[in-house]
């Protein structure tokens, strides 16, 4: 479903991604672990082309992100096409980024209507259903700042789901939350996993990774150090670096 090949990315002098290869099969959950500054967010942001990579390719469902191949050249896509591609990828931010001046329902309805040109009358009942599903159905007419952090993040998840994305990307969805609120957001993500959504989750919640990940990827210094099922990577890491990190986080 997601195919990342030889991705390099640098910010000026700083090489953040140094050749990353990653494959995510449809219906699986991939958890990305790694120390701060290792390039996890950058990788995730590259997948939906919020960040333009310097080298390498990213495909989602066979479709090249950000480029079109013509003959032996890659042509940069126009902004409008990139936006269309992005609307097939749900992205959940660490700090929610809900639109503060719009109600919860308007937040969820906005993109399906304006980006996917679906009918408002058709999207609204769907949006309410999604809000119910993530447990904030009664807050549809509230403004984001009237909600708790956990509720805001669950709205953000509903907002991403409303686009009926092929894949969902989560960048530390719980690290801006109080410990008590972490559980309610993780429960929503677990439920999505059970329903067979394709997801990539950056998180520091090892227990959560063990429970839902099909694949755990450990990334350090812009390279994937180790990847495999949680039993291997979390419980019997091969690399010294992985072992040190996991023992610290646990």
């Amino acid at each position: 479903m997601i195919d990342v090949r030889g991705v390099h990315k640098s910010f000026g002098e700083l090489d953040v991604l140094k050749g990353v290869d990653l494959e995510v099969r449809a219906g699986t959950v991939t958890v990305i672990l790694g120390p701060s500054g290792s390039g996890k967010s950058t990788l995730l942001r590259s997948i939906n082309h919020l960040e333009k990579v310097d080298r390498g390719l990213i495909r989602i469902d066979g479709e090249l992100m950000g480029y079109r191949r013509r003959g032996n050249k890659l042509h940069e896509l126009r902004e409008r096409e990139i936006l269309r591609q992005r609307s097939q990828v749900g992205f959940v931010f660490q700090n929610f980024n809900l639109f503060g001046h719009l109600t919860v329902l308007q937040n969820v309805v906005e993109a399906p209507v304006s980006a996917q040109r679906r009918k408002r009358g058709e999207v609204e009942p769907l949006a309410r259903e999604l809000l119910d599903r993530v447990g904030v159905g009664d807050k549809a007419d509230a403004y984001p700042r009237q909600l708790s952090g956990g509720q805001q993040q669950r709205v953000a998840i509903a907002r991403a789901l409303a686009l009926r994305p092929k894949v969902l990307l989560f960048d530390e969805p719980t690290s801006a939350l109080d410990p008590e609120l972490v559980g309610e957001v993780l429960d929503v993500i677990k439920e999505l996993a059970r329903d067979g959504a394709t997801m990539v989750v950056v998180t520091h919640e090892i227990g959560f990774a063990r429970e839902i990940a099909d694949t755990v990827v450990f990334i350090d210094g812009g390279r994937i150090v180790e990847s495999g099922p949680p039993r291997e990577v979390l419980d019997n890491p091969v690399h010294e670096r992985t072992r040190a990190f996991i023992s610290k986080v646990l």
Partner: protein
Amino acid sequence: MSTTSLTSAPHAADPPQTAVPDDADLPVVGRRHPWRWAGVAVVLVLLAMFVHGLATNPGWDWPTFLQFVTTRTIFSALWVTIQLTVYGTVLGFTLGAVIATMRLSTSPFLQVVAWGYIWAFRSIPLIVQLLFWFNIAYLYQELSLGIPFGPEFVQFSTNNLFGALGAAVLGLALHQAAYAAEIIRGGIISVDQGQLEAAAALGIPRLRQFFRIVLPQAMRSILPNGANEVISLFKGTSIVSVMAIPELFYQVQVIYGRNSRVVPLLMVATVWYIVLTTLLSVAQFYVERHFARGTARELPPTPWQRVRRTWRAAR
């Protein structure tokens, strides 16, 4: 102030009254603010002295004031002032929005043009610019449309193109646009980058990102500064009296030039400036409130709501 009782209804089996009541059952007495009342008293005394002065000092010459304040001449002068303000604001902010967008665009060419415009019109004193437009016929007798350095298709005489009022509006609007551009740009860059990122991640089209997501939030900081500009433009229109345009300030000057009652006629202008500025300020309050939705958990009541609430509580 108000005394609220938190005591619940008495229980059937209440102990005899000699028992010490539980903390939770005690009545609550609101906090007192003695210094606020002291402040109110001082201000009221000062205000009374001022009003007394206005009423008793014959120098204010209220009969003359009343004689002129609602005359036809003053009204038509006021109308010119309002027109100058409205045209200056609308044209100024429209052009300002375009320039702000240019400065924020990714094109270095547009950025430089916008920067140059702002630089030029903030550097030239408004009065110089106005006099320049007023006297443009002296520099360029004709304007023509055509191929640069080549044949000309249409020609205008600069004198007919804009009369004095047109020149004034043009000058005010061009000047205003430079300031408006910076205010609008300031509002836009104050919106959290995450909002744009979220909109981009959702695939919302570019224009829609701007008008639906960024601008409404930018309005929060554009409005107070923008209202400042409108109000200062409203009074600043008095500067076009140098072009002999019959706006409010010019007109009262003409009148006191004839009857030499300077103070009451200046009061006529002042009162009208105050009345319209008040209306603008009230409008500003409600427009700002509209754009404030979602910024606080609950918006504070409007002064009017507060008055009604106090009134109802008092009855």
